[in-house]
């Protein structure tokens, strides 16, 4: 009964509703964009209204927040953190640097386009995006989740080889546990 299409759809709707209203973010705050999170979370904008809330460890988090540029060094950590998160999991690229390198477009040790290495569900534009933008980004992600379109994790699993190749291009000393879910 649970396996037949419609009931599965209903279940999905309920699940997605819950998921979208409880986003536990793991902010990877090495970039300068991290400074935008405190106002987003605190009393001025209060992202907790939307059920957004900080998570302590990757095991508990749903949403990985890459705030700004990523150095090649820190990319490894990001990938590791992402792979430790449990499905379903979402990534938000935060600021121009994650989209095209931004002001670091010609830096030798930052990665330019985040989505060559991780499946990004939502990009938030701006250098740097204001809290409003961040909130809208969250809202967008919630829409996607509700529509079941935010399945970057599945995509990552399917094209794992492609991602791995890109990652290994950047990361010289590759040493990671196998990723098999």
């Amino acid at each position: 009964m649970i396996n037949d299409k419609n009931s599965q759809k209903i279940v999905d709707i309920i699940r997605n509703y819950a998921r979208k209203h409880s986003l536990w973010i793991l902010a990877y705050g090495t970039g300068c964009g991290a400074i935008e999170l405190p106002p987003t979370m605190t009393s001025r904008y209060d992202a907790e209204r939307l059920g957004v809330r900080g998570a302590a460890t990757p095991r508990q988090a749903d949403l990985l927040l890459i705030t700004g540029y990523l150095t090649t060094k820190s990319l490894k950590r990001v990938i590791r953190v992402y792979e430790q998160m449990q499905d379903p999991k979402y990534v938000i690229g935060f600021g121009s640097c994650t989209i095209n390198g931004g002001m670091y477009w010609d830096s030798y040790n930052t990665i330019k386009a985040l989505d060559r290495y991780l499946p990004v569900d939502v990009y938030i534009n701006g250098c740097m995006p204001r809290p409003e933008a961040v909130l809208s980004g969250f809202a967008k992600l919630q829409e996607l989740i509700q529509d079941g379109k935010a399945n970057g994790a599945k995509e990552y699993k399917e094209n794992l080889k492609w991602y791995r190749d890109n990652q290994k291009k950047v990361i010289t000393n590759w040493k990671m546990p196998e990723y098999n879910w």
Partner: protein
Amino acid sequence: MNMIFILFAVLLGGALLTFFSNKVSGLLRDIFFLLTVLAAGVFFYLFIKKGDTVSFSLAGLNLQWGLNAFGWYFSLIVLGLSTLAAFYALAYMRGKERLGYFYFNFLVSILSMLGILMSRDLVSFFVFWEIMTWSSYFIVIYNGKNVQRNGINYIIFSTIGAYAMLTAIVLVYTNTDSLIISDMITSYPQFTPVLQIFVPILFLMAFSVKAAMMPLHVWAPDAYSNSPMAYSSVFSGALSKMGIYGMIIVFVTMISYLPDSTWFKEIFAWLGAITAIMGTLWAVSQDDARKLLAYSSIAQLGYIITGVAIGTELAMLSALFLAVLHGLFKGALFMAVGAIERQTGTVNFTEVTGLIRKMPWTFIASLLAIIALAGIPPLGGFVGKWMLYESLINSNHYILVIAIFFASTAAFLYCYKFLFGFFLGQEEKEWEHVKEAPALMVVPMMILAIGTVVLGTFPGIILKPADIAMQSLGYAPTEGHLWSMSVLFNEWGDQVLLKPLVYAIAGIFLFFLILLTVKGWKTMRYVTTKDISSSGEVPLEDENLTFSINFFQPFMRAAGPVMKKRMITYYREFGKAIDILFDFTRRIYNGNGQTYAIYVMIFLVILLLLKNNLFG
């Protein structure tokens, strides 16, 4: 020929056979050893009935041996634990040297313990007591590690106790021209008040040394931790109970006849509580598993002493129950440590981690034993603790119950430290090769651990003989109004029905375990302990992130003030002072002939001067 003689003959002969067959072949020695232990056990329970005694005369002294229900109860601990430990020892001691020596003393100490339980007169009690002392002493120094300190500490304290007892015996003998214990008990009320105080104190000195009570406990940590683990289980599980055995006799048959015995009992109850607290605190601060267990034994004996000293029906019941239970779980734990020591070569929490998947059976055994030790339901430890608390509360020892409770709560710390330090934490390459201990070592500890589980639900199994033993001491029967097979009552009639509680716990646990297991079974993965969320970093194979050094540092900081100075340092200072005195006396003999001649003259002169005071 009386059965009791035969029993002792069997044990002694077996010991000698074991000792000498060691020269012939190891297999023969092991067989003799095992046969002797088993034969003693079988013989004891088949042929020696409660209440049969034998009297004989030696060197003009009338001696008497016999068995009563009380001794029989303690013989359960002695023989049960020693038999399992004997099996364990075969595997544990394999390949070690001086095995004949070890097994000989092992058997002799069993003999001495049985002798203590069966001697009805003071001299043979003392004789067996001393035999127990030296046999255990020879095992304590077996490892040969800083023998002079540990061994001498142990022997000095034991002997001080023993000689205190000897003095008491002599005093009793002079006052009642009989050495039979029952005569002493009957004539105790007619003693002079001074004697009435001193005889029990002297006896209790001996017993509290063996029971490792503050402030006479300083030998215990080294002794327990230095003897081979196969014996430490017996040592802390059974041999220390001989002290409890004596204490109970003294308290029930003498102290309670004192005109005002309350203060006496209070003092000892408090000493027991302090022992429990300090033992626990020191156990928490140990990094060596053997030392940890040694201190925890001291603490556990502290509870028992408190129970004995309070001496109400419930308290005595709990003391007897805890005595057996401590034998069970501490035996299992020492065995587990021995297994780990044998398999990994170290017993230090800071060195060995993550053995749970390598030695699962040892883990299960020590898990059960630890739960019992911590006194957490549904295992046996809870029953004993519960009865102890209830007895304390019912007998208006409010501060005492808090002290005991503090001790047993702080015990959680070292309980967790034990399990975490060895079995949990990151799994290391260094310990990849470690295998599970041989079955001969695992099975005994599993039996002991399962024993704790069974007693958790059906304490009546042990409470029944304990009740009979207490009746032989003159208590009223307690079955029904204090306990039944799986129900506990306190003196206010409040009850704990163990069976439904245990079933409920099991049911809930299983339900949620199944829920956790079944839900998402397909997508559930096991990841190694290296794959942990350490801020994105991947720990290398050889780097161990386990947190095990200064494990309870904050707690130790909080509890610091009471642990500034250890009891042994005081003894050391006393020893130094005495040593100076010795050195001074040594100098009287300065090896000079003239001086000696002068001494002679001085002696003569003194005699001549004092002749009127000395002779007349």
